[in-house]
């Protein structure tokens, strides 16, 4: 008899709670925007934040809310932009594919350390201390802050500098934001020539810090038949709208900091497969 009472009481409590829950969920239901769910379904869902919103959910809400362009998802590229454009009835603008590029070639053989660093093992922390332990205060610190934030696991540090496996790079640009030196640039995917240096010191000082540094000699600026290269602050900059990848600058560069990069940009002897381990 006791058991029956216990059973009935617990069942009654459960029923009461169940009804209460059902009533609450019915009367206080929050209507969800079907457009938002459709947009969210198109997005890759890696929450990289390259669109400028907190994550895919946030971006989907912003697009569904109206007034936000459908082509902001960089990893999703053109196909996602088209899909979202179709949902909200807007023609998506053409999309430039970009990949991350580390503008530094100061590997261990080319540059040296001015001090030993045994502090917190991150670029951000090391960079705060006299610009980092390396002789060049512009170059890659090699602690891999970029690799840690990469949602696609496309970055690894080899021989003191970060390398991007462009076959995996989504082009989200999260690494470029994470780099305290700001030396990761987003280049067009079809770029074939790049300046692998970020040193803005005068030629002599740059050369002392690193053999592979750009010394700002302006030889490339004069050689380039298309006028695509300008030297600003002792550093060559390529305008990719004008560059035809003729390679004249690569041949004339005395320090070899201008390189034909032929993505994937990996050091010689390292294959993309090796990075997967």
């Amino acid at each position, binding site marked *: 008899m006791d058991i029956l*009472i216990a059973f009935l009481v*617990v069942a009654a*409590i459960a029923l009461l709670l169940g009804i*209460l*829950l059902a009533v609450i*969920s019915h009367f*206080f239901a*929050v209507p969800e925007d079907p457009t938002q769910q459709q947009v969210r379904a198109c997005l890759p869902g890696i929450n990289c934040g390259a669109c400028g919103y907190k994550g895919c959910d946030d971006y989907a809400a912003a697009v569904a809310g109206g007034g936000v362009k459908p082509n902001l998802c960089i990893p999703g590229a053109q196909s996602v932009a088209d899909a979202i454009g179709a949902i909200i009835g807007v023609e998506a603008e053409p999309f430039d594919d970009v990949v991350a590029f580390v503008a530094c070639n100061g590997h261990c053989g080319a540059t040296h350390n001015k001090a030993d660093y045994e502090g917190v093992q991150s670029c951000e*922390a090391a960079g705060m201390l006299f610009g980092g332990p390396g002789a060049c205060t512009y170059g890659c610190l090699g602690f891999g802050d970029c690799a840690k934030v990469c949602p696609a696991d496309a970055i690894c540090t080899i021989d003191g500098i970060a390398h991007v496996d462009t076959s995996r790079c989504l082009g989200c640009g999260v690494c470029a934001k994470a780099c305290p030196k700001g030396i990761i640039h987003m280049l067009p995917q079809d770029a074939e020539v790049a300046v692998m240096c970020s040193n803005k010191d005068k030629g002599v000082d740059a050369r002392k810090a690193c053999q592979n540094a750009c010394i700002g000699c302006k030889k490339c600026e004069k050689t380039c038949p298309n006028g695509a290269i300008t030297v600003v602050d002792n550093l060559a900059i390529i305008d990719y709208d004008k560059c035809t990848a003729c390679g004249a600058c690569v041949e004339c560069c005395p320090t070899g900091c201008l390189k034909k990069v032929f993505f994937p940009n990996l050091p010689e002897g390292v294959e993309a497969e090796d990075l997967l381990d």
Partner: protein
Amino acid sequence: MFKTLIIILLSSVFVDNYVLSRFLGICPFLGVSKKLDQATGMGIAVTAVMLLACAVTWPIQYFVLNALNMGYMQNIVFILVIAALVQMLELLLKKFSPSLHKGLGVYLPLITTNCAVLGVAINNINDGFTFIESIVSALGVGLGFLLAMVLFSGLRTRIHDANVPAPFRGLPVTLIAASFISLAFMGFGGIVENIFK
């Protein structure tokens, strides 16, 4: 009366800290303490649920279970009630405070099965607290949980940046750090009872 309440509050925050002295609610303590903002969110969510759970389970114990002479059903009924309460809280938050729901929403389903919440509800009955006392005790336990979470998240960000020996990386060093905080909290033993003498 007032003195008793203060003693209950302080002793449940410091001396009988549920996480660090009674080892209840270890799962969220280790799981959600990686970042300060998450730890704070979880701590506040747990405090709110504990208050609510105690406010509801105390009358159920005294007016339903004890009246029908079926105190042995305590565990099952409390689990049922707390789980349903958390669900209700989530639905209501979603409706009336979307921003708070965004902040606490992900933690609420986790709290459904948090043993610290059930623990404080049952212990309040076992200690023979009155309704007011059990509410104060729930508040104290919640604040103690929040305190432990905030302290530990600070410690964990330090551990994250430290150069930990390879065999201790990850969970082992986290558990060792938790044990040190727990040892430190043992120092509060006997203090609260003697403050008002």
